[in-house]
């Protein structure tokens, strides 16, 4: 009983911490991507292929950091993953979705972003789908990191 009491409760303790953690990590990753892209444009590197390569390198370097951060957080917070697995995945998903929508939606509704023949509604639908796709991917990665920490503790 005493060991169970050390676990955080599902919604009051777990959800805000994981939402905040995933939000912060995703926000940092997005900022890093945009900073590198902006720096390349500032240096007049207009090659799309080169920019894509740089983005791949940046995201690859950021990926282990995000995994380690969630791994460390889950070992500090002491998550009872066997009972709270849905809350963990939902928290990471929500945190990343907020960031992706925050960055994506203003661009989607801005004039000039939508292609010829497609309205702002189409752009919003497309951007939302991309945000959900990215958030599900981040939720999988984050959940796997937390599962790794949980296995180690077990």
């Amino acid at each position, binding site marked *: 009983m005493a060991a169970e009491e050390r676990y955080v409760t599902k919604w009051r303790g777990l959800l805000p911490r994981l939402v905040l953690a995933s939000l912060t990590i995703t926000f940092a990753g997005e900022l890093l991507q945009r900073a590198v892209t902006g720096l390349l444009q500032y240096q007049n590197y207009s090659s799309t292929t080169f920019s894509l390569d740089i983005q791949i390198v940046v995201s690859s370097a950021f990926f282990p950091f995000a995994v380690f951060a969630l791994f460390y957080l889950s070992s500090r917070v002491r998550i009872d993953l066997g009972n709270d697995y849905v809350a963990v995945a939902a928290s990471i998903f929500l945190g990343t979705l907020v960031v992706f929508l925050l960055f994506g939606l203003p661009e989607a509704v801005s004039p000039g972003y939508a292609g010829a023949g*497609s309205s702002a509604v189409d752009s919003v639908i497309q951007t939302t*789908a991309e945000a959900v796709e990215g958030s599900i991917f981040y939720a999988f990665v984050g959940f796997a990191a937390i599962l790794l920490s949980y296995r180690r503790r077990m």
Partner: protein
Amino acid sequence: MTVIPEPVPENDEGSNLNGVKAALAVGGIMVAVYLLSSFLQVYENELLNSVYRYPDEFAFLRGLFQSPWSTDLIDWQDVVLFQLVPFLLFFYFAVRMRISALGRIIPMVIAMMVVGACLLVVRDFIGAYQSNISSLLLSGSFTLHNMSQSNPLSGFLSSISTPLEIWFMIQQGVIFSVLGVTGVAFGSFSGETPYWTLRNWLESGEEEPQPDVMDAPQGVTVGAPD
């Protein structure tokens, strides 16, 4: 009505190879899903506009899938077909094959990574023949007659041997493995298939919240007749 799911024996973990078998089974099903996705893309992009010649014919379907809505739907379709479907399949197989997320998962993870990389190759292969598939669905002929086209197979072989494509294969393998591990963990922790999990969740939401068992008042002995 209380629904009782099929019992899963406790402490009866499947063998270590069950995870590998599940990864291969999901990979086989996903090949069919990729083909289905290819057909749906042709349907959404070209078939509706070419088959329904008159504006009032199948007006409801044309309203649903007219361009450019069709291209927007493809993004949501990809979310369902390429993320939710394999996740639910791993969820299901974890329950049925009694795969534990806390047991030995290294062979399963390696198998998932290999399957994920192979699925990217399959996806590129289908993509190389997308024009032929479109021609098959629209005109009934797999070969393209009207345009001069380079051999899709040679283009596919040259594209998958580039360093960037190899990196994408590694990346796809990692993504597929974390997807699979998450699905297996959900199945392992819930102990019920996705269908029963959803059904129980819906029915528990419909039921009135039961009050907690109150402590017996002082002076009253529970269950003891006077």
